[in-house]
């Protein structure tokens, strides 16, 4: 379902906290139906970039375009409507702790659809089944494991059939097997839903497995280095920093 249609375009984005610039001049194009990975070392501003993409933080300069439309140029109301087309999985799931898993998934449906309660329940059960949590509808987030919480967060992110799914560090805090299963799920969702997927991560195994395309953020020069498929970048890129990142520092030791 990968197409050449550009879904998201990041244009000369500069991110700053107050007067402290985190990253400048980030430019990238993300194709519809692809998995796009934002990689970089800890503290390089990966999550900050994600916050700019999902409307939590306003860029200091530049813009983000969705389907060719300026995201930060919209008024607040239309931006809110636009945001319903995206789903976000936060680092530790960010489930609302006073609600059961079913209620967590149902909340966006209650707010933004006029479906009957029966239809809603069907969708909630379907979404939880998709992430392998059938039968856990009536559990509270505190009663399940971290990996399950993350999957439940994904079910919630998918509640409104989003066009784009954002993942913030999906493998953080998960064991290798659970983490790999989540990666497989990401690929499966890309293929079956045809959704565009943006992932922030520094987990190499995960990057090589899921990424169709990626950018590398460098904290020292405060800008992005290259865009491309990480497997190709590892083969062909001459950027020393990026090579060191992709080889866990082995390329530095070899010198």
């Amino acid at each position, binding site marked *: *379902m990968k197409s050449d249609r550009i879904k998201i375009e990041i244009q000369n984005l500069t991110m700053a906290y107050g007067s402290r610039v985190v990253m400048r001049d980030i430019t990238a194009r993300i194709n519809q139906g692809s998995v796009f990975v934002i990689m970089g070392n800890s503290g390089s501003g990966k999550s900050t970039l994600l916050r700019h993409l999902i409307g939590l933080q306003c860029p200091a300069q530049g813009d983000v375009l969705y389907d060719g439309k300026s995201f930060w140029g919209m008024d607040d109301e239309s931006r809110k409507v636009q945001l319903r087309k995206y789903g976000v999985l936060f680092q530790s799931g960010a489930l609302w*702790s*006073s609600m059961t898993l079913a209620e967590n998934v149902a909340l966006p449906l209650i707010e933004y659809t006029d*479906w009957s309660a029966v*239809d809603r329940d*069907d*969708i909630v*059960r*379907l*979404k939880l*089944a*998709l992430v*392998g*949590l*059938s*039968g*856990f*509808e*009536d*559990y*509270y*987030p*505190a009663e399940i494991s971290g990996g399950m919480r993350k999957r439940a967060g994904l079910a919630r992110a*998918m509640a409104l*059939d989003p066009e784009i799914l954002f993942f913030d560090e999906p493998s953080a805090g998960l064991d290798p097997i659970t983490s790999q299963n989540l990666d497989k*799920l990401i690929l*499966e969702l890309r*293929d*079956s*839903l*045809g959704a565009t997927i943006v992932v922030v991560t520094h987990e190499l195994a995960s990057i090589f497995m899921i990424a169709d395309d990626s950018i590398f953020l460098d904290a020292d020069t405060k800008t992005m280095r290259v865009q491309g498929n990480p497997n190709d970048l590892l083969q062909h890129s001459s950027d020393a920093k990026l090579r060191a990142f992709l080889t866990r520092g082995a390329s530095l030791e070899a010198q």
Partner: protein
Amino acid sequence: MRSAIVEKVDSTLSLVVEMQAPATLLIKLTGNVGGHNNPPSIGVVRDALDQATGVRLLSFESAGVTVWDSRFVAFIRKCADLCRKRNVELQGDGLPEGVRRLLRLAQAVPERTDARPKTVKTHILQKLGESAIQAMLGATELFRFLGENLAALANLLRGRTQFRWSDALLVMQECGPQALGIIAMINFLVGLILAFVGATELTRFGASIYVADLVGIASVREMACIMTGIILCGRTGAAFAAQLGTMKVNEEISALETFGISPVEFLVLPRMVALMLVMPFLCAFADLISIAGGFIVSVCMLDVSATEYLARTVQAIQLKSFLLGIGKGSFFGFLVAYSGCLRGIQSGYSAADVGKATTRAVVTGITAIIASDGIFAVLCHALQI
């Protein structure tokens, strides 16, 4: 035999159910099954299965489907449920590829039937018994924590604790000087109210000068310390519970314990000592403000001169009343810190739990203040203080 059994057409979606081969039911879908459209109703399929006899296979034809969403997948899942119940095989070959993949994904992990927590109906007597046991356990916990605190206080007096004065001073600043504004406002209003009530009653007997006695004694012995205690409970006790509760959620309290640092000595004791030391000063301040409130009402409304009122107030208030008031204040400070920290440390591990802990801290604190004040009143009466 090729006749349509049911046909449902809406403006953008049509669903035709027809008997194909002798034992095969075919559902033909065309159009848009997503977005604002309602998905086909499962009743149509159920009726078709009811009407047809000897159906062994249900298959789909969806080449004409342009758009679909999750509700369509949910519809197919319901069809699958129906088929399972009736021993009919469901053939998904004719569905869009994405739908088939999602169906496979949804079935990949079988439903955990044992996972659902059972909601068992309990008898009212059983519930009563259970809550009694809970209350007992709660009370044990209450006294255990009290014991730990008293032991920690004793250790402090012997100079053998992990107590940090810098922490205590910080808490003192937060709950002392920074609370003066609200304490002044509330106590001023209480003094005003006391004087109003007294004035209307006492003037009828020509005894309006005794408003000074009423306001002075009531403020110094009871109202000032109770009001200050309650303000502190809402302001500082709640903050203690929220802070310690969040520390529990972040496992900061567990981290202290692994270093062998007692959370009671390190976290609770500074707060408790700070409140016990600050409260007498806050109470004395509240006494003054409350009397000022009464003074203003009396001088403005009644036929009482300022000097007369002040002289009467000085005469009415005995030293022991004043000491009783600030002594009680210090004790209330202990109660506020105790309930705030207890509920904070008892908190569970989620945002909702921290909210509950804060609520319980304030409820426990205010209840303890009022109840213990009642006991003090009886004791003072018996001891003629």
